[in-house]
């Protein structure tokens, strides 16, 4: 489970299994680095892919983006060895509640992804119980086609001010500077993927810089 006093770097993987294995071997060993089985990766390889990632690394986030059948999907991912799973903030409230409850039952961290949610507060307010992590991010498709929209950094303070117990994960920036800025804005987890997708060696360097930074 994640420690509330630490900062983490989450690296998302979406390539083929052999490529992912090679990329992971470039990463410095650190429990501050968590890896993510990206949604396309899960849809391609299923729980088999998640269990392989688990063999290659300690903490694995299954980016399920659950929209319905909260408990069924969580059970499958936890059985495959996932340490955390994600649910969409856009899902029906019943699904998010089921998702958080089931994550607790099977002993993994719950992450609620606020992609395309205008007011994450409104969602959090309606929940029976808070998730472990709230993910603030913009979709890749949105990012490429609509560069004007920004990562809502101001929401980090608001959410943490109101719900002190929840961790915040932010996706969007890709350089060491972006990652530092994310922490500066009080986020607990910085998620990167594109640089690793495009240039694995460079990201391995970023991961090393990161480990030095948070030591």
């Amino acid at each position, binding site marked *: 489970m994640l420690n509330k006093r630490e900062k983490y770097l989450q690296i998302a993987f979406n390539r083929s299994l052999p490529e992912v294995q090679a990329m992971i071997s470039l990463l410095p060993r650190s429990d501050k680095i968590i890896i993510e089985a990206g949604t396309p990766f899960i*849809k391609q390889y299923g*729980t088999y892919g998640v269990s392989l990632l688990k063999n290659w690394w300690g903490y694995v986030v299954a980016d399920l983006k659950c929209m319905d059948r909260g408990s069924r999907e969580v059970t499958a991912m936890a059985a495959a060895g996932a340490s955390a799973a994600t649910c969409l903030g856009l899902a029906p409230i*019943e699904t998010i509640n089921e998702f958080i409850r089931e994550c607790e039952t099977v002993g993994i961290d719950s992450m609620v992804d606020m992609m395309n949610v205008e007011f994450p507060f409104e969602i959090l307010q309606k929940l029976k119980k808070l998730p472990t992590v709230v993910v603030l991010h913009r979709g890749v498709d*949105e990012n490429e086609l609509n560069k004007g929209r920004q990562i809502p950094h101001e929401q980090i303070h608001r959410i943490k001010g109101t719900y002190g117990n929840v961790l915040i994960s932010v996706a969007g920036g890709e350089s060491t500077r972006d990652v530092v800025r994310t922490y500066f804005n009080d986020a607990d987890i910085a998620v990167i993927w594109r640089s690793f997708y495009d240039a694995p060696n460079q990201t391995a360097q970023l991961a090393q810089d990161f480990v030095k930074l948070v030591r």
Partner: protein
Amino acid sequence: MILQKRLKYLHVALNNSLPEARQVIAQLPSSDRILIEVGTPLIKIYGTSAITQIRAMVPSGTYLVADNKCTDLAEREVAMMAQAGANAATCLGVAPIETIDRFIAACDTYKIDAMVDMMNVDSALMVLKKLKKLPAVVIIHRGVDESELSKEKQIPYYQIKQIKGSYDVLVAVAGGDTIREVQRAIFNDADIVVIWKNPEQAKSFLKEI
């Protein structure tokens, strides 16, 4: 589009496991009006191999829907589903508009039908209005968790006529599993009725259609 606009279809969703999927498929009557869906849990558990394995279980020419519920990285997902042998893929109506547009364009490229699932969308019309191009199918949907935990939530049948009155698309209805709900969907002008709980009743459902 592969589906025909004047026909009604029964869409059977397979959600539990591949062995169970095999049993359900064996019980289904042979009909070109039955569409088979590889449900989201199957895709997340078995990956695209769920699609290729179910393709091998069904009679040749069966229309397969991959319920991938895309929310991002649309082209990547559509390519994966099409290459695995799906005839249609799904995208969430709550996804960013950029994603839905990309999803529909990618379905065109890969020559499969685009289905947009309006689960938890207040106004399907508002989403359709913003799109560059219409999908082949719009799915009106009440989720399983919603159905089981909030019994008062109704399937918004009234949206079928609203959508069909304004746009030239097929409308599928998901979330009802009794003969009465199937009748209701057809009465309200749905083109496709999605079921998952009682596939053994497929024969009588098919009669209603």
